[in-house]
């Protein structure tokens, strides 16, 4: 999974880069390190190990120096606590060889803003990591202006080996689907809060009336209301638009976790 095994930097330039990334060979020895929000780490770890990759336990990030050479790819999946995300990325960037790519969720902060926290900006690429989405067949990937082609090659090969197609989108907090989905869930929450209908009836109506695969309330429960709330909060802070203001009921559920009335 290495972008470029023998050189100290991921090389600039298209054609030579491609040649180098083609020479990866040490999958057996190498491992993937996944850190971040518990629900996302669990989901990513399950899919990754099901595809016969070695996984390092997330705690290894604390003693990363000893394992750094074994890490072929690092994945940072914090959406909820950006301070923790920053700490994780700084640790990864300091310890991992310059040729090792880092994938990072950019649902609640853009990749470009994340590159401000690290030194080797070219190795970072963003993904739309929101709980439950990895069950489906496509992953959104967002390069920043610093991301090198060699890094993207690593990302493409990695998801191809998980059997996923990718869509490359512009680097904006929330990317595409998290932004649409969290807005729908938020609107459903406003409808519950103002007693327009019961949560169950809202789920039924959206599934039968517009063919949604899941009702917005049950979807919110599956993703985690804390994750939905964090996504909306990030969009609101990014754009300062009323439409991204999180419903107060959603904010409460982000703390309590469950939908008590169901």
């Amino acid at each position, binding site marked *: 999974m290495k972008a470029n095994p023998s050189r100290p930097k991921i090389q600039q330039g298209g054609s030579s880069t491609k040649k180098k990334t083609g020479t990866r060979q040490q999958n057996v020895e190498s491992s993937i390190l996944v850190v971040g929000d518990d629900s996302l780490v669990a989901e990513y770890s399950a899919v990754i190990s099901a595809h016969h990759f070695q996984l390092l336990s997330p705690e290894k990030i604390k003693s990363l120096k000893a394992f750094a050479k074994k890490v072929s790819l690092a994945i940072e999946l914090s959406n909820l606590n950006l301070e923790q995300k920053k700490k994780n990325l700084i640790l990864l960037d300091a310890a991992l060889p310059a040729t090792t790519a880092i994938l990072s969720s950019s649902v609640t902060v853009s990749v470009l803003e994340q590159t401000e926290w690290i030194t080797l900006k070219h190795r970072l690429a963003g993904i*739309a990591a929101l709980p439950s*989405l990895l069950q*489906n*067949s*496509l*992953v*959104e990937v967002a390069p920043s202006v610093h991301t090198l082609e060699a890094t993207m090659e690593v990302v493409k090969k990695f998801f191809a080996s998980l059997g996923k*197609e990718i*869509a490359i*989108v*512009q680097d*904006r907090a929330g*990317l*595409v*689907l998290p*932004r*649409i*989905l969290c*807005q*729908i869930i*938020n*609107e*459903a929450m406003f*409808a519950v809060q*103002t*007693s*327009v*209908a*019961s949560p169950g*009836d*809202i789920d*039924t*109506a*959206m599934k*039968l*009336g*517009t*063919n*949604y*695969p*899941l009702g*917005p309330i049950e979807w919110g429960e599956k993703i985690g209301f804390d994750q939905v709330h964090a996504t909306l909060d990030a969009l609101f802070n990014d754009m300062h*638009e*009323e*439409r991204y*203001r999180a419903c107060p009921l959603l904010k409460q559920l982000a703390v309590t976790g469950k939908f008590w009335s169901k």
Partner: protein
Amino acid sequence: MSLHIGIVGAGTMGAGIAHVAALHQCTVSLYDIHDDIIRRGIERITADLKKGVEKQKFSEEEMTAALKRIRPRTSLADLDTCDIIIEAVIEDLLVKKDLFKKLDAIAHHTTILATNTSSFSVTSIASVTKKPHRIVGLHFFNPVHLMNLVEVVRGEHTSEETIARALEFCQQIGKTSVKVNDSPGFIVNRVARPFYGEALRLLDEGVASVEEIDRIVRSEGGFKMGPFELMDLIGVDVNFAVTQSVYDQFFHDLRYRPHPIQKQMVESGKLGRKTKKGFYNY
């Protein structure tokens, strides 16, 4: 006990409701102002029923029996003994209010008066009647014989008994009902707004293209259709009108603000599949 249902308006929605009600043992009085409008409505019902027979959803005998239960009516007064009268005329508040005033005067005092409106307040329509407790929203979805949902809308004065009878009717005609308190867009048209609105913003901001957003929503989200192909199917003009209506009814709450791209497409005649041009070419 088989119900006697009156339907006012033999267009797409009225005919669809008549089809489903008649197929589920209701006697249907189908009203419109001209014989030929009703005839066209019944032709549509017949064609849709034939498809049902072909797909073996029901027998030819059941189809024939259903068609026999539909009675063409060109006088509103003939609807006086119906258990439920469902209004399915054009989405024009003045036309609907005028009709409900007449129905309120004609119909037996136990008759429920229902509106199939998707964009007006049930309370507002009921305000012109003397017995607003018997007015309810029955919001069916197009095509009625294929879409299983009915939003049962409770206006400010709608009685519990009216709601209970409306729910019972939905069950009798094989529909799943949900209860909604009268509010802009009810459930579906309101909660679905960001699916389109946010997609239009993403497109406008250059985050991804029409094709890519549709592909992402389908393959990453598990939706059957992406927002742009769905807008093309529904009609960009129809979708824009719903958005505009919800926005207006919420007194221009910014969450519902329509997007200029959509308005421009409507004005340039790119309405989707029906004009062969929309977000895609057909």
